[in-house]
């Protein structure tokens, strides 16, 4: 019997399939690719003055910011919008603004060489566009060259090494993942259709230098009109420590989770709904058993266990970098330490 056992072990060892490291693999190109209908170069759109990498907008290209952005491996983002002449978006209090055909939303992802000098030298990684066509939105990605002279269309994404000095003076680096065209939609999706996420009233409603952002966007022809900003909801800036933990955490959750975890999003399968307006405990994961989490449960019983962040699946998945566990599923390879600390505090203070 023992001999047989040993024999079997030997057989198994002899037959086991060794998986090589990815570097060693030959890349095969399948025949039959199709050409893209989109411009090859970002500069062809004429959004920015020369030199391109300064990201100085041409006339009609308008900068904006949002209150609670998605964490993207600490990348900085510069957002612009270009609407067709004399066709401003119609204001929408709940969802994203109703942009007209021909509108383009422009988002540049970059790393300042030194985060303590955010306006200093930087490396732009990618520029993502959302283009409003007649009946749908299209998502495009342009990948910047190492020399920062130009960005080129990619549909299949890329991995780019990014390095920076962080706020405490430490050197950091990350293998930044530029998404492929489908991956854009895995976040930018409602009821199966590709949609913008950021430009909602709650996200845009903020005070900026010289006044209210929403009023400026009306003045610059991006929006048709807005109610008095003080009468409409606004998400907190989750970095703003003068706001309550509750408001900061709910803003962070809306910005980082609710694009999927809402009734219209792909995360609806889980029953977890994290829009800032939701107050039902079960929808927020409080005392809710996981549904199809697999190893994502981390051996824990509930999504959120009030007072017990260490026993809450929500925090466990925010703290993970395992692709099979972490949340969000895409768009990061490292942990948002500050965001995780905020959610930890939110659950700990919850009664």
């Amino acid at each position, binding site marked *: *019997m023992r001999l*047989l056992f040993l024999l*079997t072990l030997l*057989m198994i060892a*002899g*037959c086991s*399939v060794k*998986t090589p*490291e990815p570097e060693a*693999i*030959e*890349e*095969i*190109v*399948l025949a039959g*690719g*199709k050409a*893209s209908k989109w411009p090859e170069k970002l500069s062809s759109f004429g959004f920015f003055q020369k030199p391109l990498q300064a990201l100085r907008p041409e006339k009609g290209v308008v900068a904006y910011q949002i209150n609670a952005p998605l964490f993207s491996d600490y990348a900085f983002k510069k957002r612009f919008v270009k609407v067709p002449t004399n066709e401003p978006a119609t204001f929408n209090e709940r969802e994203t603004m109703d942009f007209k055909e021909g509108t383009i939303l422009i988002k540049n992802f970059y790393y300042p060489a030194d985060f303590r000098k955010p306006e200093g030298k930087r490396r732009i990684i990618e520029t993502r566009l959302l283009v409003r066509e007649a009946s749908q939105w299209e998502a495009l990605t342009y990948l910047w060259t190492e020399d920062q002279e130009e960005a080129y269309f990619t*549909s*299949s*994404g890329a991995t780019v090494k990014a390095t920076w000095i962080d706020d405490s003076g430490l050197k950091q680096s990350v293998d930044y*993942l530029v998404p*492929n*065209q*489908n*991956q854009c*939609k*895995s976040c930018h999706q409602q009821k*199966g259709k590709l949609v913008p996420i950021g430009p909602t009233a709650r996200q845009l409603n903020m005070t900026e230098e010289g006044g209210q952002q929403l009023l400026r966007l009306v003045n610059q022809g991006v929006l048709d009109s807005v109610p008095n900003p003080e009468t409409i909801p606004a998400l907190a800036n989750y970095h703003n420590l003068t706001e309550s933990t509750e408001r900061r955490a709910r803003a962070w959750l809306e910005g980082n989770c609710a694009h999927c975890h809402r009734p219209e999003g*792909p995360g*609806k*399968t889980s*029953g977890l709904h994290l829009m800032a307006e939701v107050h*039902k*405990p*079960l*929808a927020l994961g409080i*005392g809710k*058993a*996981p*549904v*199809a*989490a*697999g*190893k*994502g*449960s*981390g*051996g*824990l*019983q*509930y999504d959120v266990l*009030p007072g*017990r962040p260490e026993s809450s699946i929500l925090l466990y998945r925010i703290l993970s970098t395992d*692709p*099979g*566990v*972490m949340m969000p*599923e895409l768009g990061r*390879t490292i942990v948002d330490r500050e965001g995780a600390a905020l959610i930890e505090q939110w659950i700990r203070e919850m009664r």
Partner: protein
Amino acid sequence: MLPIQNLHRNKTMAIFNLAMRLLLGFSVVSILWSCQPEREAQPVWKSIESSLQERFIQASDGDTILIPAGHFLFTRGLSIDGKNNLVLIGAGEDSTFLSFKNQKEGAQGLLITNGKNIIVSGFTIEDAKGDNLKVSDVDGLTLRNIRSRWTAEVPSAANGAYALYPVLCKRVLIEYCEAIGSSDAGIYVGQSDSVIIRNNKAWNNVAGIESENSKWVEIYGNEAWMNSGGLLVFDLPGLTQYGHHTKIFKNIIRDNNHENFAMPGNVVASIPPGTGVMILATHDLEMFDNDLINNRTVGTGIISYELVAALNETEEVQSDAEGGIRTVENNYKLDSLYNPYPYRIALRNNRYSNEFWFPSLSNDIGFLFLLKSFLSPPDIAYDGIKPPDRNPEICLSNNQGAENFLLLDAAHDFEGFAKNPTGFDCSVVSSLKP
């Protein structure tokens, strides 16, 4: 009466015997065939990652995409979105291999979303970090001749959750597929509508085949073995829809005695090893003409979500006692649309046999069966937690070899526990008459 040591010895002997028999069988097979097929023994891994993903993105409605024969490694999850009438076809499950062993990004191997009439067939997909093949929001889906597996020699919670995972789909056909090594369910259909799961094989998963919150489901001609639970039909709270109308027939559900390696917290983690079929909180289910063989803990269990919540709650209370923090109740009762009780369940003309004398003891439910039904694990067990507002209409008829039917009466501390109670005859109670 029997000392507990004997109990363990007997249990150990049974496992040992089984293991030895398997080992012997495997050794003979190994010697006969050695390392064949050669191709699988020494594959040359290549990458088609960029161009395959590009092809998926650029595909027009009506396209057929061929994946050539070969062993292909991926570092990122693949995705297909918003396509109609698309056919994705490999050179066969013994020729085309898609491995996600080196996956750095994406929770799924292949993710298909928001489409209509999609056919996927003819390849092996393996070792994704999360689910191997997930399909969401597709109307008209066929999965055929797909082998989906985790290749680790000892399955563990490190394996992904689902091998084949359609969710929120309509008109689903899964046939001639194999699912191996999933840490949750091998073939898992969730929150879907009009589903056929037939002629598939599932082994070494926690759950072989699972239908969850799905309606109008037929599961037939499948074989599930060496899972912790062979076949599960579950209804869970708080989701987009609830399940009903399931037919389970002509399946072979045998030897589902694998250790449960699910990550705790997931509902399948509470399934005792040795479960043939588990029916949880669903209604209008018929199960007939199946073979349930050597599932050591229970052939067919019929339970309410109350029992599952109570068992999990106990663990929570225990861990809370250490932390000194108040108990939190499972919030499923907040879902007013959810019915946690099984009703209108008919088990007819199935064949039961079990050579084991003891249920699995590594789990609360198994232990309960041991206490209540010493030396003869139940063929059929019902927790007896009834809906407050209706007759549960649980019925049994002509189930060959089903000598032990246990009514647990779990809601009343098992006071009404009974073996082979009357009042469960299909001709009397069920509105699901043949």
